């Protein structure tokens, strides 16, 4: 009964279009004050404790590093290297875009930053080579979302925090699914390119090739530094984020020398505001999660779900389906942050690995980023490609289908996610 009031209250506030963060914390406040009769000063304490965690520092740092690299010359150098390697094949430029996205994903933790970084460079290039415009928009918008599946990843940090698992472990689990989706995208591009005869005529001399690699080597070293550092035990994911900020600054300011100080300050400001808003939602969501746990919702929910759904595969299918719909209604990252901890008990009873479930959640977030009307990637693409939301959304449609196919494969083959952590991290 009480919980029904709680959720009713939340949905009324949400549908009034109150910011999600405020809706979450207001619901908690109303419940504490009227039903649980707990003094509201504990709310302030929860707001504070939710953010008082060293792991969270990785979020603003990865946002900052991603934005520096997206605005600077690193992304361009990366694209050049990829073009050199796969550009000559049928559909080569499309494949080079996907590979550049994978590479960029391995140095930044955000999906919109990847779209900006690779999309703004590759869009004109693809059109110039005669690729279909709609295909190009769809490809760049959707492959940018690999940014959050291949480590490092900001949503993974948030998920690891609310689910109490190791950030390094879920990072590791993201590799293979990321490559898997990347491969599917490449195969799709290859088929389309063969059908319509898209291929590049550009050739490189040996000298040009060496110059491109020499230019790109600084950018190529970053993933090795960041991921090698984390898994070599040199530093934690949070520290890795700080290292990548400093490294990105160093090469942009002293090696490529294209970043102006003024622009840098703007990037810092924008990143700080963005991460402020993101962590503010987290802070408010933590009070809500705390309340749900105090009221034992996870246990009650587990009872209900287990008694109605026999197989865990049906349960996972249901969750995927529900999240696809939720993703079209509200910000999907918040949805995942709130829903996952509520399902902890259910997951334990079904014996579903939290890391595997995390990867499923991340791919759902990717799909959410691509579905109108609130998909983040769509807005980024609208801005950099000067198209309307309807045009971008239509272009992305076949790719959403592809992502959903991959999502199902990764859901039902847990090994794709769990193989690497099991092999490399099990003590």
């Amino acid at each position, binding site marked *: 009964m009480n919980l029904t009031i709680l959720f009713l209250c939340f949905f009324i506030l949400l549908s*009034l*279009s*109150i910011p999600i963060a*405020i809706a979450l914390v207001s619901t908690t406040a109303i419940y504490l004050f009227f039903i649980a009769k707990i003094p509201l000063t504990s709310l302030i304490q929860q707001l504070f404790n939710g953010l008082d965690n*060293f792991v969270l*520092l990785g979020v603003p740092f990865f946002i900052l590093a991603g934005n520096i690299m997206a605005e600077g010359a690193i992304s361009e150098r990366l694209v050049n290297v990829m073009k050199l390697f796969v550009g000559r094949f049928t559909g080569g430029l499309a494949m080079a875009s996907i590979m550049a996205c994978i590479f960029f994903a391995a140095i930044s933790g955000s999906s919109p930053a990847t779209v900006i970084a690779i999309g703004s460079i590759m869009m004109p290039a693809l059109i110039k080579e005669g690729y279909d415009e709609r295909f190009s928009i769809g490809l760049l918008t959707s492959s940018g979302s690999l940014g959050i599946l291949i480590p490092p990843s900001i949503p993974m940090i948030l998920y690891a925090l609310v689910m109490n698992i190791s950030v390094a472990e879920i990072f590791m689990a993201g590799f293979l699914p990321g490559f898997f989706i990347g491969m599917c995208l490449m195969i799709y591009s290859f088929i389309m390119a063969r059908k319509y005869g898209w291929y590049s005529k550009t050739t490189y001399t040996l000298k040009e090739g060496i110059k491109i690699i020499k230019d790109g080597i600084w950018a190529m070293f970053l993933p090795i530094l960041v991921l090698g550092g984390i898994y070599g035990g040199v530093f934690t994911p*949070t520290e890795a984020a700080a290292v990548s900020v400093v490294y990105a600054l160093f090469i942009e300011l002293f090696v490529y020398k294209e970043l102006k100080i003024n622009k840098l300050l703007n990037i810092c400001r924008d990143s700080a505001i963005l991460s402020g808003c993101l962590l503010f939602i987290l802070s408010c969501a933590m009070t809500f999660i705390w309340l749900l746990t105090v009221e034992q919702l996870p246990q009650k929910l587990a009872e209900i779900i287990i008694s109605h759904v026999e197989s865990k595969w049906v349960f996972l299918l249901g969750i995927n389906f529900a999240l696809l719909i939720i993703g079209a209604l509200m910000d999907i990252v918040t949805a995942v942050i709130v829903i996952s901890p509520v399902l902890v008990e259910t997951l334990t009873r079904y014996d579903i690995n939290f890391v595997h479930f995390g990867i499923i959640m991340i791919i759902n977030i990717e799909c959410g980023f691509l579905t109108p009307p609130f998909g983040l990637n769509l807005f980024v693409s609208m801005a950099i490609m000067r198209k309307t939301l309807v045009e971008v959304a239509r272009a992305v449609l076949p790719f959403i289908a592809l992502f959903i196919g991959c999502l199902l494969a990764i859901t039902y083959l847990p090994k794709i996610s769990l193989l690497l952590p099991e092999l490399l991290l099990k003590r």
Partner: protein
Amino acid sequence: MEKFLKGLNRFEEGLCGVLLLGLACLTFVETFLRYTVSYSFSWFQEFANYTLIFSTYLGASIGVKYGMHFSMEAVTEYTPDRISHLLKTIAYFISGLAVILFIYFGIRHIQSIIKFGVKSPSMQIPMYIPYLAIPLFSITISFRFFVLSYKHFKKFLNNEPYLKVRKKETH
């Protein structure tokens, strides 16, 4: 007054950017020292966490001005423009009121911390200092929500068109 507010805005935005960059560099230095000469600052993690909380609330406050807080627009998208403005007026007004709770109970909480003289575990600073960020920036957050509410109310009165998400062109 106008000039003062503008100056304050610029200071706020500059401060949050510099804080973030500074914190990243400091974390880098700490990591570097720990790895090379195994020296680490005992106060570092706590300091970093409190700075993060400070800059989060600061950033969230500026974010209200730029309309960067996500909300569910499913209803406002499909209602007539005038009603959308009215809904937004109400939504931001309630948000402003809700954040006033943060101010009031934040101050109450701080008072009780001062009374008990709680100190932070490793830096040994009085615990009310890091907590100050919440009521302090809640003042600006709630002020900005009320400003937004007022703006939508004016548009509601003047019957101005409402900028819907699906109709938004490039921004």
